């Protein structure tokens, strides 16, 4: 069983979906968890209650990671409460799907700002304390198979996630010597609010291309993140798809 006793994990965008499942998985393994949300306070508070109800430790912090100062505030609040950060999961993400020809510049920027710049912002804010701890660390970025193979209607999202993947590899090279691993997970179709809005026709079509013949659950992604956070001692700079075999 994977253990994270005495470790502190910060999971961005964790009130719902994959972030939420990740908080629960890391908490069950013994980590103290920082739950971050941008807007959905109620969901974040509920998750904290669930964590504490199971005997875990947690903290809720509001911050919009697309703004650097807010990422700094998030990291500062985490350190003030728990004194250290061992694991950072950059999960906060949004999508604004549209065909390129119809995509508004705001839809492009918002997706880049949260998914890609948000990953930079929080990682940048965490790096100094993580280096000073001198005990290594784990960074897991939530990318997407769209960031590897592309997806029609998602040029913004795919570009942001592709950027996250390149960020992951570059940072892995930069700080590997300090015992900090940096990896990305690339979910395929996962049952979250983000995919709930897809049309039945599109879902049916997607299912036909998934060898495991089902959509993934947030927990399917969370268990990989847990592995990368608690084990995976010799794994860095990698992108691992969790997509039921959708792309190989």
């Amino acid at each position, binding site marked *: 069983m994977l253990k994270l006793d005495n470790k502190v994990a910060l999971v961005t965008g964790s009130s719902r979906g994959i972030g939420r499942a990740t908080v629960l998985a890391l908490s069950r393994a013994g980590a103290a968890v920082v739950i971050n949300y941008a807007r959905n306070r109620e969901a974040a508070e509920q998750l904290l209650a669930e964590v504490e109800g199971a005997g875990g430790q947690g903290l809720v912090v509001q911050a919009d990671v697309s703004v650097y100062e807010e990422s700094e505030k998030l990291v500062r609040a985490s350190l003030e409460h728990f004194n250290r950060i061992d694991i950072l999961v950059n999960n906060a993400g949004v999508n604004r799907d549209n065909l390129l020809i119809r995509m508004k510049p705001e839809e492009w920027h918002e997706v880049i700002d949260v998914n890609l710049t948000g990953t930079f912002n929080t990682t940048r804010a965490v790096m100094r304390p993580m280096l000073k701890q001198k005990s290594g660390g784990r960074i897991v970025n939530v990318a997407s198979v769209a960031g590897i193979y592309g997806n029609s209607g998602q040029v913004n999202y795919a570009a942001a996630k592709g950027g996250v993947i390149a960020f992951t590899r570059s940072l892995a090279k*930069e*700080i590997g010597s300090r015992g900090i691993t940096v990896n990305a997970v690339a979910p395929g179709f996962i049952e979250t609010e983000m995919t709930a809005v897809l049309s039945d026709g599109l879902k049916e079509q997607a299912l036909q291309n998934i060898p495991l013949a089902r959509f993934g659950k947030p927990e399917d992604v969370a268990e990989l993140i847990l592995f990368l956070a608690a084990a995976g001692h010799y794994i860095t700079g990698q992108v691992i798809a969790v997509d039921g075999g959708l792309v190989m």
Partner: protein
Amino acid sequence: MNVEEKVKAIVSEQLEVAVDSLTIETTFEEIDADSLDIVELVMALEEEFDLEISDQEIEEIKTIGDIVSFIESKV
């Protein structure tokens, strides 16, 4: 401890080199410090001396003596 001794102690601790082997002329190249080592060293110095060292100032640091005179000019 004067500034020079403090700087040597921090360099010794951060970069894991014997303090006796450090002189005012020791360059960071000689002790195999890479760019990330220098940034970590700067972080420790900023904390110890309660000052900020800019990226441009970091560029100019080549020897232990550079750090000592830089800090003496600031405090």
